[in-house]
């Protein structure tokens, strides 16, 4: 579903991704783990097309559920979203003066328009929003508030998952969605990811530091990202080993 080949990228002229290759198949939850500064967030922003993250080489091919093959790097950020990519932010942005309801309705209808589908009416949208907010146990009153303004860290992450539920992407890149969550919120968010993103035609790239999210969202594959490259890919047991032995031990083994 997503094939990254020999991707290189830099930020402010500094190389961060140094020939990263990775394949995520449909139906898969693929966890990316790695030490601080390895390039995990850069990878997510490069996939999301954030200005300032300059791709200097390599390719990213995204295959839509309809089987259409897209050169992701050629698309503008909003076109990537319409094609089915969702980027979960490590630090969701506050937008004063714009309500969640307005923001998400505009976003969903812009995506639908880009795909040649009809816009949802106000009533249809609210029904959908209510359903998805319920899934994440979020009060509808929160959706009427301004985007992320005054939300706690945990509420922001929960709101991100409500957004994901409403926008219904086929591929989600979730950058440290577990940070800032207490144990109960982690479970709610993790179960939300399972309900929204598990499916034959969907996939998730789950960037995380900790096993605790992977206890709820069980990964099919785990890759270690270090110094701008994927250095190891294995089954879910790799995450457990990393948790026990640390990155240094596991990576030393790879180097040997």
């Amino acid at each position: 579903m997503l094939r990254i080949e020999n991707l290189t990228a830099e930020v402010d002229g500094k190389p961060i991704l140094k020939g990263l290759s990775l394949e995520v198949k449909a139906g898969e939850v693929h966890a990316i783990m790695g030490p601080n500064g390895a390039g995990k967030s850069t990878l997510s922003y490069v996939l999301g097309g954030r200005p300032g993250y300059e791709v200097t080489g390599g390719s990213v091919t995204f295959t839509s559920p309809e089987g259409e093959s897209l050169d992701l790097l050629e698309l503008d950020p909003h076109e990537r979203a319409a094609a089915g990519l969702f980027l979960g932010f490590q630090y969701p942005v506050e937008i004063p003066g714009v309500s969640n309801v307005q923001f998400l309705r505009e976003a969903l209808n812009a995506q639908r328009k880009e795909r040649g589908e009809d816009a949802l009416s106000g009533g249809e949208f609210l029904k959908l929003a209510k359903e998805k907010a319920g899934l994440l146990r979020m009060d509808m009153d929160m959706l009427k508030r301004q985007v992320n303004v005054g939300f706690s860290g945990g509420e922001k992450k929960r709101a991100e998952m409500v957004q994901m539920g409403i926008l219904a992407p086929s591929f989600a890149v979730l950058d440290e969605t577990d940070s800032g969550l207490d144990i109960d919120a982690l479970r709610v968010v993790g179960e939300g990811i399972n309900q929204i993103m598990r499916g034959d035609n969907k996939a998730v790239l789950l960037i995380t530091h900790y096993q605790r999210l992977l206890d709820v969202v069980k990964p099919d594959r785990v890759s270690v990202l270090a110094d701008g490259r994927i250095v190891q890919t294995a089954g879910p047991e790799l995450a457990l080993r990393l948790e026990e032995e640390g990155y240094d031990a596991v990576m030393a083994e790879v180097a040997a």
Partner: protein
Amino acid sequence: MEAATVTRPTTRDEDWRYADADFLASADAAHLAHWATYEVPEGETLRHAAIHTSGDASAGGFERIRVHVGKGGRYEAFHVIAGGKYQRIEIEVTLEEGAHFEFGGVTLGGGDKIQEFVTRTIHAHPNATSNQTVRAVQWGQSKGNFLGRIEVARDAQKTDAAQNFRAILLEKGASANTKPELEIFADDVQCAHGAAIGELDQNAAYYMAARGIPPQLARKLLVQAFIGDAFVELDEADTRERLLEAALEQLEEAAL
């Protein structure tokens, strides 16, 4: 009575320092000296809401409004300046005891437009309040200006006056000027003023793009939220919508 004694203002006059010199030179001096005057009787409310959108071909225009607000009365003025080479709204308000002046102003334009609000708020007696919110959105070589003078007389104790100006410059070359001026002769008063000039929030714009909102729509939503501040106190929803729409129409016609 005035014709013989009127002197034409120039940009050397403090209140006209940011005005369009060509306009002043060619305008009719007697007309420039004309004030529309209003009296708000004790305990009553007068509201003005207007959109100023003379076309690009027009040299522009101006209005000078002088209002006397009786005890406990309320004067509300909401203006959108979105057209004309030079457009100026000048308001002078004298507040009796316990009276209130509410002002919301938006300038929005490109090209070489000069758009300005000039207010003079005279707190002549105790317990009067005033609140002024001005938002400027400029592109091209345009200028958005706000000159706000607040005068608090010696016996106008318990005056509460607030003034806030913020500008967003969408392109290099556009500018905004503001000059708050406080003359306070009473000792038990609250006068707050704030000003900020910046660019459109690029983080918010990218967050919107990542959810599928194209750049032009993102800009519109962010500008809408920004200028909406000026009309928060306008509790007539229809009028508020009308003002916002007129402003945003100008933005949509702009080739940015």
